[in-house]
């Protein structure tokens, strides 16, 4: 926990190193944004900034769940597949089955967005629970379980929809992905509200403190009377919840669900969380950092596209910047190491 950083700052004079260490990802993000703003003034237009926020909102939701997982020193590679599966189920519910898969517009029959959202989240929770179960009961490392899950859920998604997409929802459904409240896109609001709740849970609630304890030293947590298995399992269920919610929002945004959705999300999301300062070894990290990390990746993708950089070169730049961002964070933290 970075509470330490606070106290030192409080006393003494201003602790520059502590400050930089604490906000390293944010500083990195601001520098990056400044660079983009100079190279391409349109980058800072409000419409583009809202674009960025809307684009990151789905991976952002996943990253919130992933923060819980990584805080316990776990990892979840299955999220992209689970998202695809949950999205297809939600779409099928919204369309009232798999028959009228391509009806367009409001004339679609079905069960409404409420049931669709519930279905997506239910699939997510169930998928998360199954994986949590395998991790805690079969004692298989999370990397392996979720690697298996990645394959299983993708297969399930393809099987469920026979490989094809399902699209064309009613306005009430798509509002969740395409609508706005005032100038702010709905997915952005969902993302930020979830982030605030997750922040409160991790910072101020018993459950959150226990997540840190389990990640910090699982044996100690057990001997302190924590139910380590239950907490570990819960964390994957939470991840599943966000995969389901993300699936619903994505389907609403694209007005369609397909079996290949979310391919490769796991790495983007893990990168977001780690760039935000969460340690892959567990026990260290914040939701604030994750939000910053998510936006950083979004800014990177958007800025490079906006500048119409060749997509080959983009990949090289993105790879380098991910490493540099984490290196900067590590360096800043090592500077104040034992403070």
């Amino acid at each position, binding site marked *: *926990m970075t*509470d*330490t950083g*606070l*106290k*030192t700052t409080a006393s003494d004079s201003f*602790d520059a*190193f502590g400050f930089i260490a604490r906000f390293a990802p944010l500083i990195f993000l601001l520098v990056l944004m400044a660079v983009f703003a100079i190279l391409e003034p349109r980058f800072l237009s409000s419409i583009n900034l809202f674009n960025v926020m809307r684009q990151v909102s789905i991976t952002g939701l996943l990253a919130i769940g992933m923060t819980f997982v990584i805080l316990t020193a776990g990892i979840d590679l299955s999220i992209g597949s689970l998202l695809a599966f949950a999205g297809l189920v939600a779409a099928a519910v919204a369309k009232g089955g798999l028959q009228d898969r391509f009806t367009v517009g409001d004339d679609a029959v079905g069960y409404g967005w409420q049931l669709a959202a519930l279905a997506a989240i239910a699939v997510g929770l169930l998928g998360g629970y199954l994986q949590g179960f395998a991790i805690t009961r079969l004692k298989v490392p999370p990397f392996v379980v979720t690697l298996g899950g990645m394959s299983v859920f993708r297969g399930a998604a393809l099987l469920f929809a026979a490989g094809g997409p399902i699209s064309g929802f009613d306005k009430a459904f798509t509002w969740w992905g395409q609508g706005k409240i005032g100038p702010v896109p709905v997915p952005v609001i969902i993302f930020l509200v979830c982030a605030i709740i997750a922040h409160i849970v991790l910072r*101020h*609630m*018993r*459950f959150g*403190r*226990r997540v*840190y*304890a389990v*990640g*910090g*030293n699982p*044996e*100690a*947590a*057990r*001997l*302190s*009377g*924590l*139910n380590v298995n239950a907490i570990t399992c819960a964390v994957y269920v939470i991840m599943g919840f966000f995969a389901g919610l993300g699936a619903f929002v994505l389907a609403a945004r694209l007005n369609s669900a397909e079996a290949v959705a979310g391919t490769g999300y796991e790495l983007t999301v893990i990168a977001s969380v780690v760039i935000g300062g969460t*340690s892959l070894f567990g*026990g*260290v990290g914040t939701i604030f950092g994750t939000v910053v990390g998510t936006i950083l990746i979004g800014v990177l993708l958007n800025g490079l596209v906006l500048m119409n950089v060749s997509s080959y070169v983009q990949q090289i730049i993105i790879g380098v910047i991910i490493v540099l961002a984490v290196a900067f964070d590590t360096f800043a933290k090592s*500077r*104040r*190491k*034992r*403070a």
Partner: protein
Amino acid sequence: MSGISKSFPGVKALENVDFAVGAAEIHAFLGENGAGKSTLLKILSGAQPPDTGTIEFNGQQLVLASPQDAQRHGIVTIYQEFTLAPDMTVAENVFVGREPGSRFFVNHARMENETRNLCKRIGLDRDPATRVRDLSVAEQQMVEIARALSMKSRLIVMDEPTSALSRSEVEKLYLIVRALKAEGISTIFVTHRLEEVFEICDRYTVLRDGRHVGAGRVADTSLEGIIRMMVGRDVGLLAHRQGSTATGEVALEARSLSRRRKATDASAIELHDVSFTVHKGEILGIAGLVGAGRTESARAIFGADLIDSGEVLVGGKPVSIKSPADAIRNGIGLVPEDRKQQALFLGLAIRTNLSMAAHDRISSWGSFISTSKEKALVEDFRKALNIRMASGDQLVGNLSGGNQQKVVLARWLALRPSVLIVDEPTRGIDVGAKVEVHNLLIEMAKSGIAIIVISSELPEIMALSDRIVTMREGRVTGEVPGPGTSQEQLMTLMTLSTPKAA
């Protein structure tokens, strides 16, 4: 507790053990390394289930399925292995799982306040918001104690609480334990420093090879009697040197080692002009309280931590040491204070552990390891150090603490160093093994190696050393000859704040 048995695959750790603790008593629980003490206590605290046997507490039959169960009944445990989360704060560690606050929310301010009070009580001078990672081993031990005290208890189980503490902290712990006793709370106290038994305990129980071999009132027994019960034969408490083997030839000289506190590394211990010399065949003791900078000095000489200024001379010549590999090349070895974290590869075989620093000696054709040479090496040291093991292919993690320590010592002896620094060489080691380690150090000195012993146990330092250097807060505060110096004299030097010529 009666009729307790517990087996691990391949090991019968406890066999039909009976164990009873009275109300308001301080009970010493004794036995050699691997006798089964921790195992029994883990059963008592609900961390492990027994195979057979029953636990009765205040006249009530208990079935403990988890540590929570035991805590509910007022049985609170300080485990032998640290159970702290390094990246959480002191306060969070103290209250983990029992945070004050409402049903769902944690009240951070209250938690830190309560922690501050507890820390004051046991003499831990640290902000409750400090990360545990930034504490020394001794301070971490005190956090464990604080946590135990924060729970409502009727019985406190302390598995080797003093092994990382030096005298003054131990005294504070005594005060607390006595105060608890006055409130009617019993304590089970495990220690390998047997003198502590006579200082504080009322009754004792001794375990040998997982079997109950004796119990009674401390007042009715003697040190020799207890040792005989534990080991099954007579052993002295400490080895005594038969005269010095020191030569006049300087083996290693540390000159003005200094390390400043940096804004970026505020809690690191400072060193101020630390200088001392050690001669061939000599045993130099370094004494000091927790945080005196002894470990820091040793690590600096060995190249494990970098210093700001100062130099190290080996055999009179200045050498540049930037890493442990450099130190080894110059004939310096270090047995670190934390066996498990800093020395052992618990998942690897004894053979591999033992030869790790001496690959040159067991190689053929340059970079191939010769299994036969390696086996011969292990066999030599098994005999020389009397390491009790089945074969060199066994995992080192399965050895008892004392034998693990001997494997680490063997690793350095295999290198044939000219200077060997041993930091807390007998921490957590039982009496029998302790004497063996002492004799080993004496033998090494006899063979001409210069030895620096760092220990928090004054009797140990006094029994072994030719000369003793005392330190406090990163400064050398004095130097006295080993034989003939009293414990009081040493304590005075260790608590001096300004250096005084010896």
